[in-house]
């Protein structure tokens, strides 16, 4: 047994490390707090009242009306290009609704929450008129769109959808600005891109068909 390690001189040991212990502890605390601050901020899921959740919910409502407008055009537009435009917008936005609803599920949130419409946007509440978010058509306008056929219906669709897109792009720009969620920001950017391109195409169609009376 070479247990000679025995009790030779225990005295120097503590004195040598005694000052290291508090220093290391403080260092560890600082490190821990620093990491602790980084981790939740980077990884935590958007909360019920977050801009991300508000965007997902409100954009679902906003998109839902565009889907209906697009399907009206698909069902009854007289110009084939307008019909194609209608179904393209409808299916694209319906797909995005599914994506946004999947986000909410992933975030452990429900499709609707306690926040009023547009509360997530800086000046959002004031942008809601009669319950309608920017760019949305009134029930009367929707009724008129359903009842107007022929080229006049095509013109009305283009006018209403361009207005609708302007509102949608505005909302997407807002969330892209305030959100740090990579997936949300990317999706918002895609929305901005596709809706701006569609607006260009719809304006070209307006030139072809003439503006709504």
């Amino acid at each position, binding site marked *: 047994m070479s247990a000679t390690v025995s009790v030779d001189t225990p005295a120097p040991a503590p004195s040598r*490390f005694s000052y290291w212990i508090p220093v290391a502890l403080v260092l560890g605390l600082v490190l821990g707090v620093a990491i602790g601050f980084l981790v939740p901020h980077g990884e935590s899921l958007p909360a019920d009242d977050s801009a991300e959740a508000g965007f997902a919910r409100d954009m679902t409502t906003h998109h*839902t009306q565009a889907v209906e407008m697009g399907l009206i055009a698909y069902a009854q537009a007289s110009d084939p290009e307008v019909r194609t435009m209608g179904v393209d917008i409808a299916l694209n936005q319906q797909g995005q609704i599914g994506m946004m609803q999947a986000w909410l599920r992933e975030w452990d949130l429900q499709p609707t929450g306690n926040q009023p419409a547009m509360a997530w946007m800086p000046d959002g509440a004031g942008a809601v008129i009669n*319950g309608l978010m920017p760019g949305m058509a009134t029930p009367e306008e929707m009724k008129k769109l359903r009842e107007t056929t022929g080229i006049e219906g095509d013109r009305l669709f283009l006018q209403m959808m361009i207005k609708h897109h302007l509102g949608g792009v505005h909302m997407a720009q807002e969330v892209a600005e305030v959100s740090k969620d990579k997936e949300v920001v990317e999706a918002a950017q895609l929305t901005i891109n596709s809706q701006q391109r569609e607006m260009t195409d719809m304006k070209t169609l307006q030139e072809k068909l003439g503006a709504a009376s």
Partner: protein
Amino acid sequence: MSTPGPERVPSTVKVGKTTGQGKPPSGGSGAGKPGGSRPTGKGGKGGKGRKPVTPVKVSGGRNWGPIAVAGLVVVVAVGIIGWGVFASVKSDKDKAVPWEERAAAITGLVNYRETNPDLVKGSQHKSGVLKYEQSPPVAGEHNPSWENCNGVVYTEPIPNEHAVHSLEHGTVWIAYRPDLPADQVATLAAKVEGKEKAMMSPFPGLTNAVSLQAWGYQLKVDSVDDPRIDEFVKALRVNASIEGPTALCDRGVSVTGSTPQG
């Protein structure tokens, strides 16, 4: 490796270790022999008969001191990180109370999903006029067409057979007594306009001022200013859909009167 300075050799208390491992330390004598036990490099050579050099002192403690401190630091750091993650996740959870719980907290709410599970099964399409146990109806068989329900304010009664289909898609249906004054109707309309999966209509024969329906849920109140109306809408609109949040509310029918259109 095989030739440590003579001064250091002694500090290599590992001799003790080697022995502890059960291998005869004698093997160490073969200076550079590769076959020796791992610590051979150092201990092998000096370990032999060097007992006399006993400045072993600190070396034993030196190994454990930093390890203990580092271990403590790690434990503290992990604790802090863990607490941070837990706290952030927990606070998120706190904010998103499940809709079922929010609904259950509404005084006077009747939950037919609990009392009548058969009634709230979905996909019971049936054409023509149907009879409902509840008035206004809250679930059950319904016509294949749903009543359009994206923020629609109906000023005339709508057929139950279509309205129930809308409920199945997650709609909150606000039914009101037909003789309510216009300003009260306007108060209700403000709760519907612009909201998907929400509709309202007068309901002949209603004894309360307002009756709210979602699939399997009902709440009757006597004032359009009753705060439970908003609670009902917030808790159940879309959330109560048994076909998920993407069930359609447009492309249906906008029939008024009491006769369904199939």
